């Protein structure tokens, strides 16, 4: 048994001896034959790598150990057909340090000069494997033998790489490193510098860093688990078709933990100066500076990047503070999540040196980028993100507005395989309160919901989108218009597509409306190419009840200013069908507005119309044109119409609309008590501007007076009214007429002229006219009136009559009797008393004069002449008959009668006093008060 063991040990020793002897012999052989060693190395490496490896010149020495090689060349074979390496000169001074079993291979000096390294996209680069297999038993034994007999570790004391060059060509990017210089100092510090250029030719992107510098902070040791280095880059540039960045500077403190395989950076400072953005066909943006500071850790095995805090600053604009997590999983190679903790917005200050920053702390604002099922997904989520405050801070909303609300939003964009994107988004504002500077636009407790989804096709490129808006809850006010959104919510929806290159918006469906009030539908196209802007929209209002729209948009907003509206009762169904076009800033709207089965009534004004069917033609345009032959035709029919002074009647007429005009081309015949009047044709021009004008005419053909005035005058009046007012012009709120209306009554004529009005559409219109009185029979005029009977013939005029608020405001009156053969000139006692009271304010029959009233009931007169005027609420009444220094209102007859003499030449009476006097004398049954 012992013998057997001894034999085995002896055999092993012999084998070991032979092996060592063989190894020693081999080493001795190669030491003495460098060319053989060179050939051996070339073949070994070529065989193991499958490439052509050659060394032009190799020399070495043992004591000291020094190796020098020139012209090292690695040419890739078929398998590694993308790798080229060339080293012009390499020198290594090596020694072994330490006791046997603890020796280290020390590169005392390593120098590589002029090397070039090229990797093309065809080569398969080594993959990072998350799990490492344990070495085999033989491998472990061999490694232990090498560690025992040769060296346990390798150390570099000093090294230098100069004039290196590396190019790496990948699938979609080229990386070029030039002027590579690397130094390993005796303190084991490493310095690397190079010129770096990375290009993405397909995307026309390039990044150039002319001065990239890496230095380690402490000696590199394979036993120390950490390598600390500092990375700096200066004057780097980044170019793309849209973005141009120059002056990029970066400093980063990097720590690589060998044991954990983590790279931590604490912190990284990135400066981007003079960033300019450029969009196609647009000017470059003003340059701005970007600054990014972050710290974090990159776990290589787990492929996780965690930056617990980063600061991004866009100078004079924005500061962002947040967190970043990224996971580069093999199945989902990209998963980046950014959480924004703080947004700082630079505010304008009156002092140039002062910088003010408004800070917003969003409750939850997250950006997420990742790959899901091989699709690139972008998600943005926010809750209490202060969207409105941000928009205000960025001056995206008008200044002076105040807002408060809770917001939440969500956007998901997915990049499709063909390069297109699809997106869905939601935006909610709850409890929104807002108002502008003068409180003319405000909302309280408003809820806003917006949803949008669509597709972006980058090939076309085209955006197809659907969007909906709903504003319910709360209340809103805009100027005079108020809406309770709980009852009448605002809703809108959009469906359309936008062609980016053609700048063409196709609106296939648009709806805007207020629930239970009104809805507007639209579809059409909008092209906004420079110099060729076109809009074509078809607008329609579906049939809806007029009452709610009238109440919300007319009655409630304007009833304070126009109290008459409160008495107006209005009903029916309205609808509209319009075409809106715009070409190079020339707008045009044409179509029809309909009102079916309409009704208007104002009970206290005796106004009532029923069965209104209106098809109102509309033609509005901003372009100035001559009158057009083309018209839009419409009609108006009223089944029953009752107007003050008009009998009940129906009406039917055609309407024609031209550019900014409306016509009734056929005359309109209206029944009046005692006959008919003919109005029109009517032409309205500039009807959509404040300078609206109306041109029409009015013809009255022998209308009998009696039925016409039967409701006004107690006494029947026989006669006729004829006349023609042509034209009747309404311009700038002023109505003017040419022509006269002749009333034949009381054996004479009353000619009305200069009929008109001013301030027609204001709260205080003033109506104007003049009247010429010729040969009026006073007996017929006064018989049966409370004024008292007068006989005779009267001539006169009332000029410049102005009537406001139903009362005379101004006039100049002259009334004189003219003698006529066969006509008596007699005045009753009552009339004398009334004239005296109006003219002087007191009855002439007082005292002794009163006794005459017992004897006489009427008196002859020679002349009655009165001149009166009203202005500024002051009446002035005088007699026209001046004789012997007296001013007679009534001059008695030659032999008898009563003189009424005006004793006060400045006979002015206030309006309210005159009203009292007139009321007194016209009171039924009133008569002279005999004292």
């Amino acid at each position: 048994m012992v013998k057997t063991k001894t034999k085995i040990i002896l055999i092993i020793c012999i084998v070991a001896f032979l092996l060592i002897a063989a190894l020693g012999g081999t080493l001795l052989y190669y030491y003495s034959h460098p060319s053989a060693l060179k050939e051996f190395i070339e073949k070994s490496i070529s065989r193991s790598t499958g490439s052509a490896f050659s060394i032009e010149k190799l020399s070495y020495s043992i004591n000291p150990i020094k190796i020098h090689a020139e012209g090292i060349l690695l040419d890739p074979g078929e398998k590694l057909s993308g790798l080229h390496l060339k080293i012009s000169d390499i020198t290594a001074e090596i020694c072994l340090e330490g006791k046997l079993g603890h020796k280290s291979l020390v590169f005392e000096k390593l120098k590589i000069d002029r090397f070039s390294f090229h990797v093309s996209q065809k080569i398969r680069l080594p993959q990072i494997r998350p799990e490492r297999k344990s070495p085999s038993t033989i491998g472990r034994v061999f490694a232990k033998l090498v560690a025992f007999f040769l060296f346990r570790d390798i150390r570099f004391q000093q090294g230098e790489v100069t004039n290196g060059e590396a190019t790496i060509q990948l699938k979609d990017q080229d990386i070029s490193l030039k002027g590579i210089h690397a130094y390993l100092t005796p303190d084991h510090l490493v310095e690397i510098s190079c010129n770096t250029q990375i290009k993405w030719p397909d995307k026309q992107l390039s990044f150039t860093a002319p001065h990239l510098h890496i230095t380690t902070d402490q000696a590199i040791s394979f036993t120390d688990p950490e390598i600390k280095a500092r990375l700096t880059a200066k004057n780097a540039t980044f170019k793309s078709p849209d973005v141009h960045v120059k002056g990029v500077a970066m400093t980063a403190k990097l720590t690589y933990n060998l044991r954990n395989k983590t790279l931590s950076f604490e912190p990284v400072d990135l400066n981007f100066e003079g960033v300019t953005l450029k969009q196609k066909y647009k000017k470059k943006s003003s340059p701005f500076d970007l600054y990014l500071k972050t710290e974090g850790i990159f776990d290589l095995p787990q492929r996780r990047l965690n930056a617990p805090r980063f600061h991004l600053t866009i100078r004079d604009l924005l500061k962002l503070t947040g967190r970043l997590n990224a996971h580069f999983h093999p199945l989902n190679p990209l998963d980046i999540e950014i959480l924004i903790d703080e947004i700082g917005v630079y505010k304008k200050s009156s002092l140039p040196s002062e910088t003010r920053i408004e800070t917003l702390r969003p409750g939850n604002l997250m950006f997420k980028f990742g790959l899901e099922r091989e699709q690139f997904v972008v998600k943005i989520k926010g809750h209490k993100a202060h969207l409105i405050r941000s928009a205000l801070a960025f001056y995206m909303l008008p200044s002076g507005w105040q807002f408060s609300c809770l917001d939440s939003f969500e956007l998901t964009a997915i990049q499709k395989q063909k390069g297109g994107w699809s997106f869905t988004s939601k935006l909610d504002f709850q409890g929104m309160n807002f108002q502008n500077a003068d409180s003319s636009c405000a909302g309280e407790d408003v809820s806003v919901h917006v949803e949008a989804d669509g597709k972006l096709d980058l090939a076309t490129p085209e955006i197809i989108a659907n969007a909906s808006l709903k504003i319910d809850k709360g209340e809103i006010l805009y100027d005079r218009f108020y809406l309770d959104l709980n009852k009448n919510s605002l809703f809108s929806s959009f469906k359309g597509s936008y062609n980016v290159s053609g700048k063409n918006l196709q609106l296939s469906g648009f709806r805007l409306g207020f629930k239970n009030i009104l809805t507007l539908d639209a579809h059409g196209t909008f092209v906004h190419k420079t110099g060729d802007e076109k809009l074509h929209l078809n607008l329609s209002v579906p049939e809806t009840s007029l009452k709610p729209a009238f109440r919300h948009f007319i009655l409630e907003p304007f009833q304070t200013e126009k109290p008459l509206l409160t008495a107006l009762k209005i009903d029916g169904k309205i609808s509209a069908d319009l075409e809106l076009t715009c070409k190079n800033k020339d707008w045009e709207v044409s179509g029809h507005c309909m009102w079916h089965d309409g009704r208007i009534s104002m009970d206290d004004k005796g106004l009532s119309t029923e069965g209104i069917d209106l098809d109102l033609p509309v033609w509005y345009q901003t372009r100035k044109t001559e009158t057009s032959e083309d018209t839009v035709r419409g009609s108006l029919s009223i089944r029953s119409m009752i107007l003050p002074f008009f009998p009940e009647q129906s009406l039917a007429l055609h309407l024609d609309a031209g550019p900014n005009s409306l016509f009734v081309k056929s005359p309109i015949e209206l029944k009046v008590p005692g006959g008919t009047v003919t109005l029109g044709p009517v032409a309205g021009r500039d009807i959509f501007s404040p300078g609206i004008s109306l041109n029409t005419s009015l013809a009255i053909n022998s209308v009998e007076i009696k039925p016409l005035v039967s409701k006004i005058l107690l006494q029947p009046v026989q006669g006729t009214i004829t006349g023609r007012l042509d034209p009747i012009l309404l311009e700038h709120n002023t109505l003017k007429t040419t022509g006269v209306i002749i009333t034949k009554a009381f054996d004479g004529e009353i000619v009305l002229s200069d009929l008109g009005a001013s301030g027609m559409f204001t709260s205080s219109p003033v109506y104007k006219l003049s009247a010429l009185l010729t040969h009026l029979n006073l007996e017929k005029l006064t018989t049966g009136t409370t004024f008292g009977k007068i006989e005779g013939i009267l001539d006169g005029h009332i000029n410049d009559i102005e009537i406001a608020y139903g009362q005379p405001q101004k006039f100049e009156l002259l009334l004189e009797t003219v003698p006529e053969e066969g006509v008596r000139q007699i005045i009753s006692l009552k009339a004398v008393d009334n004239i005296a009271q109006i003219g002087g304010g007191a009855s002439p029959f007082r005292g002794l004069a009163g006794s005459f009233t017992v004897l006489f009931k009427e008196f002859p007169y020679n002349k009655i002449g009165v001149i009166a005027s009203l202005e500024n609420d002051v009446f002035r009444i005088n007699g026209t008959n001046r004789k012997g220094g007296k001013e007679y209102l009534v001059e008695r007859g030659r032999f008898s009668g009563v003189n009424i003499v005006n004793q006060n030449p400045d006979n002015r009476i206030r309006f309210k006093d005159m009203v009292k006097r007139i009321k007194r004398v016209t009171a039924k049954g009133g008569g002279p008060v005999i004292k």
Partner: protein
Amino acid sequence: MKNYRKTLYMASVLFTLLIFSCVTVNIYFPAEKVESVAGEIVDDIRDRKGGDKGTSLKDLLLQKTLFALFSSNAWADDVTAVSNPTIRALKEKMKARYAQMKPYYQKGMLSEGGNGYVSLGNTGGLGLKEKRDLKNLVDTENKDRASLYREVAKAMKIDPSQINRIAEVFAKEWQK
């Protein structure tokens, strides 16, 4: 020669300045009368005549005596007061509206500006509908005031360019 020219230029400039300084534009504006009219109109609208109730018997006697002595003058003033149907109608409308606006004046939500028009103050505490109604009241009141000032100018034959001055005179009365 040069000195002579300089003197001539100086004289020309001075003469030109003298001519322009002599140009005056006269615009008739009877301030006292407008003040009186404004006082009367605003008193009517605001119903301030009740203030005489506390007049003593002695004062009444004095008034009557003075009225007897200067009755003709008083009558003349009465007749020349500025009024017409438009002014009367505006006054009536404004009087009725003042009753609606009075609570808001008391709460400080309305204030009288120096320009003769009402303006909205802090309307906090009012609902939007109430704000709308109050704004409508203010707008309507201001439109009527503009009409009133225009009518007063017309009645008093004051140039329309002076309407703002009339409004400023009225402002003092509104602010009382």
